């Protein structure tokens, strides 16, 4: 479980996160949603330690990340997997080398053992046989799957995804969402997904945290989000005319 306790983050005069607290449960797909500029990405980057907090704490299964020294943080980081918005694949490396990268850096396995693990995770994301392609030779959906394969190659306890289906067509987006949800349940990971895609919310959102102007404005499940009267959430969910008319009819 990841517990976030009253975190604040500013950039110069811009106060982005204003005392957010939340809990993200193990074995569930936890979604952070909100409009662009609501602080989602900064929130995620703070949890990953890419931004230092101004105040507050982040606990990974009770371990206070902000009070850790460099070595302790490094140990926690080995338990993290991250799928970046653009994939962040190393473009000078093949698919196989990308997925093998964390194994090369942090394990003393033989090449055969590493290759076996790479093939296992590539098979899990339905990319078997694509080992020798370069990221530039793959489609957007494949790049997301390679990024997922790389993120889970070390069997992480925590998986973070920043807009995992941005730039994908709706069908591929659902494939990626479903894959992340399946992996989360299979490996019992604590998964935190940053998104503004309502399809993702309805498909895989087991716990949802809604951010607005750097505050946690609402939290609930994919069922309760459709029923809430919270003004900001309603504004966000029922953006299109079609959805608004459905809501009004109901």
């Amino acid at each position, binding site marked *: 479980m990841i517990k976030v306790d009253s975190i604040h983050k500013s950039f110069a005069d811009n106060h982005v996160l204003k005392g957010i607290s939340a809990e993200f449960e193990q074995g569930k797909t936890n979604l952070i949603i909100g409009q662009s500029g609501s602080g989602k990405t900064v929130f995620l980057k703070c949890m990953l*330690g890419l931004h230092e907090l101004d105040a507050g704490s982040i606990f990974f299964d009770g371990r206070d990340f902000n009070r850790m020294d460099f070595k302790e943080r490094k140990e926690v980081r080995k338990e*993290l997997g991250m799928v970046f918005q653009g994939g962040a694949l190393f473009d000078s490396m093949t698919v196989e080398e990308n997925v093998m990268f964390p194994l090369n*850096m942090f394990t003393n396995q033989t090449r055969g053992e590493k290759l076996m693990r790479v093939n296992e995770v590539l098979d899990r994301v339905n990319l078997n046989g694509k080992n020798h392609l370069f990221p530039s030779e793959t489609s957007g959906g494949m790049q997301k799957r390679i990024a997922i394969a790389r993120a889970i190659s070390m069997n992480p306890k925590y998986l973070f995804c920043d807009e995992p289906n941005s730039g994908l067509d709706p069908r591929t987006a659902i494939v990626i969402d479903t894959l992340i949800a399946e992996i989360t349940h299979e490996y019992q990971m604590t998964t935190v997904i940053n998104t503004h895609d309502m399809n993702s919310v309805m498909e895989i959102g087991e716990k949802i945290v809604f951010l607005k102007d750097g505050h946690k404005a609402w939290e609930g499940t994919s069922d309760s989000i459709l029923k809430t009267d919270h003004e900001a959430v309603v504004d966000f969910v029922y953006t299109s005319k079609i959805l608004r008319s459905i809501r009004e009819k109901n």
Partner: protein
Amino acid sequence: MNFIEHIGKYFIFLGRTLRKPEKVSVFRSMTMKEIDILGLNSLPIVSVVSVFVGAVVALQTAFNMESPLFPDYLIGLAVRDSVILEFSPTMVSLILAGKVGSNIASNIGFMRASEQIDALEVMGINSANYLVLPKIISLILVNPMLIVLSMALCIVGGWIAGEMTGFCPTEEYIYGIQYEFRPFNVAYALIKTVVFAFVIATISAYQGYYTRGGALEVGNGSTRAVVFSSMLIIFLNYVLTQIFLTN
């Protein structure tokens, strides 16, 4: 951000970079790759420029020494001293600052813009050390070899020009390049080269590493890398010459 802040940030960056590598086997293979990309790929430009500059120095020297009081071997002597003391270590380093420096800055800048550096950090890898240290080591190893090659090719270029134009017969030229040769000059040139290699690698990497934004900023970072490393090379050239040749 002001100049003083940049200097402080540069030294913090160096502090993060100059550490023991995470995994020696990975570091070794990265360094070998960089030697190929940054060093061996520079061979053609260094070779072509060196041969022609050597030839031009020989011709200009001959043109300025038409008096029969000056012996022909002075052409070989002039070529040797000008390439060893200045052209090869300084001018070739400036050329490499343009070619290699922009490559380093744009490569690392693109990695920053496409979140590849964030991906390394999330994994718990010291990205500055992982990306930059192999580049520093490879340039420090390869640039002195390129500079020695450049010296040799300049002298060959001067000989070809002298022989082809008839300004300086081969025997005179060979006598000239051996005349009162000071091995310390080569050592001085190599010391300068190592310092310049460090400057090219670290200034360019710094500019790339702290790129913010997209393609435009990557391009601007690359330009700044070439400008700042060239300026620092010129400045340090003066300082090192003052230290080594005037005492």
